[in-house]
């Protein structure tokens, strides 16, 4: 029985046209303008800007701290989603609502609050000082701020998928003799992984570009705790628009390649 299914929203042409216009206005034109601006540079000039030692140090710092933050949230976020989906307990709704708070809070407020807490003289920071290490003004502090602002991504992507896996599936696996770890490895993980990767990628991408919350806790020491977005601001404050766009373009390209790789990985998992 082959019947041509008519879509709910009519008019492929109209919807695609709308999609393209929308994407162009919101995403492609602003990004394109950046590339056009950066194109004023010759290849050598561009390379000289993006391969300066300070830029490379910042590149490494930004991507590594964003990666660690995404990994931490990948693990803790999955755990949070698990607890919220699989158990009912008093206050669950409130905890569920709290997950989104880092999105609602202005990032600068988060940054100042975290710095006050984790600075060497702060409420939490003083214990770290006693133990002989520093949190604020080190890469550790940056990772902490990024972990805070990217918390909702993994939770919110994993949560609905987890809710869609009936508990019976786990029970059936257990009845067939699977140990808990085997249930997790062979039953839950394959279903969760694509959503988890999406959450991870979103958290990572957000972390790479984050400015407001990091800037207060980072310490901003050149070569040590200076993030890439700050270097862009530094260039702008010198009225060096082209230099700023050069770093922006480089960030964009590196991020795009990484996100593309994650996407490919995801497709391989989904279609074995």
């Amino acid at each position, binding site marked *: 029985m082959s019947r041509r299914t008519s879509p709910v929203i009519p008019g492929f042409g109209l919807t695609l046209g709308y999609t393209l216009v929308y994407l162009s206005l919101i995403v492609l034109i602003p990004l394109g303008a950046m590339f056009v601006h950066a194109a004023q540079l010759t290849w050598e000039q561009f390379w000289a800007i993006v391969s300066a030692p300070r830029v490379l140090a910042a590149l490494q710092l930004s991507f590594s701290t964003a990666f660690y933050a995404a990994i931490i949230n990948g693990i803790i976020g999955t755990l949070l989603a698990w607890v919220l989906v699989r158990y009912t307990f008093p206050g669950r709704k409130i905890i569920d609502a709290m997950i989104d708070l880092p999105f609602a809070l202005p990032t600068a407020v988060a940054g100042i609050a975290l710095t*006050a807490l984790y*600075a060497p003289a702060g409420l939490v920071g003083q214990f770290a000082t006693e133990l002989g290490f520093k949190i604020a003004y080190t890469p550790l502090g940056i990772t902490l701020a990024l972990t805070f602002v990217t918390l909702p991504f993994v939770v919110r992507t994993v949560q609905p998928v987890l809710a869609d896996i009936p508990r019976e599936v786990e029970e059936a696996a257990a009845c067939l003799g699977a140990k808990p770890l085997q249930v997790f490895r062979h039953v839950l993980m394959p279903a969760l992984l694509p959503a988890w990767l999406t959450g991870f990628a979103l958290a990572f991408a957000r972390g790479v570009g984050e400015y407001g919350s990091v800037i207060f806790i980072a310490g*901003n*020491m050149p*070569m040590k705790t200076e993030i890439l977005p700050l270097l862009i*601001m530094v260039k702008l404050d010198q009225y060096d628009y082209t230099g700023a766009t050069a770093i922006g373009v480089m960030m964009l390209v590196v991020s795009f390649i990484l996100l593309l790789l994650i996407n490919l990985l995801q497709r391989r998992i989904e279609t074995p």
Partner: protein
Amino acid sequence: MSIRRYALAALASAVFAGSAIAKDYELLNVSYDPTRELYQQYNAEFIKHWQQAHPDDKVKIQQSHGGSGKQGRAVIDGLRADVVALALAGDIDEIAKLGKTLPDNWQTRLPDASTPYTSTIVFLVRKGNPKGIKDWGDLVKQDVSVITPNPKTSGGARWNFLAAWAYGLKAGGSEAKAQAYVKSLYQHVPVLDTGARGSTITFVNNGQGDVLLAWENEAFLALKEDGGTDKFEIIVPSLSILAEPPVAVVDKNAEKKGNEQIAEAYLKHLYSPAGQKIAAENFYRPRDTKVAAEYAKQFPKLDLVTIDKDFGGWKTAQPKFFNDGGVFDQIYTAH
């Protein structure tokens, strides 16, 4: 757009009331962070002053504050400022160069290099001065930690840097010695915030560092805050820099709004005794010698170098010290 609305309102009132004399003005003053309180007070004074001569006019003055460089960029990118009052002349130079909304010689149009009030850089230390800091030389002693913002992003921090350089030059006698001094000074800096306010928060609220290099007016403000005198004190070094935050009319914007006259009067009145007094009350050093004498007790005397005489102006100092590859970059990347 509210400007158009005001223009229409002005036109309508002119036609209907039959009087072409009374006007509505809306003036936008784009300034840097620490002048907020100063201009709040001054705007009220200026409106009073203007209305004495033009009793039927309605004047509304808006102020915008932020980091000096960011504010300059906003004006270049199209923020319709009638007047700008920024932390350093270099930022207004850039507006003239990139925005082309005022002539290159803007600094010659008003007295005193277009700077109606000045300030300097002093040290804010914790009560009782536990580290015994008296002058620049003490900042590079072991176990002293210094808070100052990043001169690449903060106008105030550039004055700090140049003041330190001037000391290094005087104490060492050569540029190489001066560079060695600022290098060791910045090795004592644990946090480089992006702006002066950020550094004040780091020092005052987060309890970091033993010394804050600060605008004199900001240091006084920190003392004026609740309990400030119980926690901090100001140390005046032997030598510092005359920090000159200039003002200018942005001609093209003022013309478009029909504000040329009032914008010019707004800045000129800053030089009047009334304007100078308000500057002094807000801890800026007045230019007027009479008003300065009145407030002499408030402002300690010290040796001051100037950007024009000792550094060849911002057009020389900015690329030499702060642009990519300049002295500031060298002290961090060269080993």
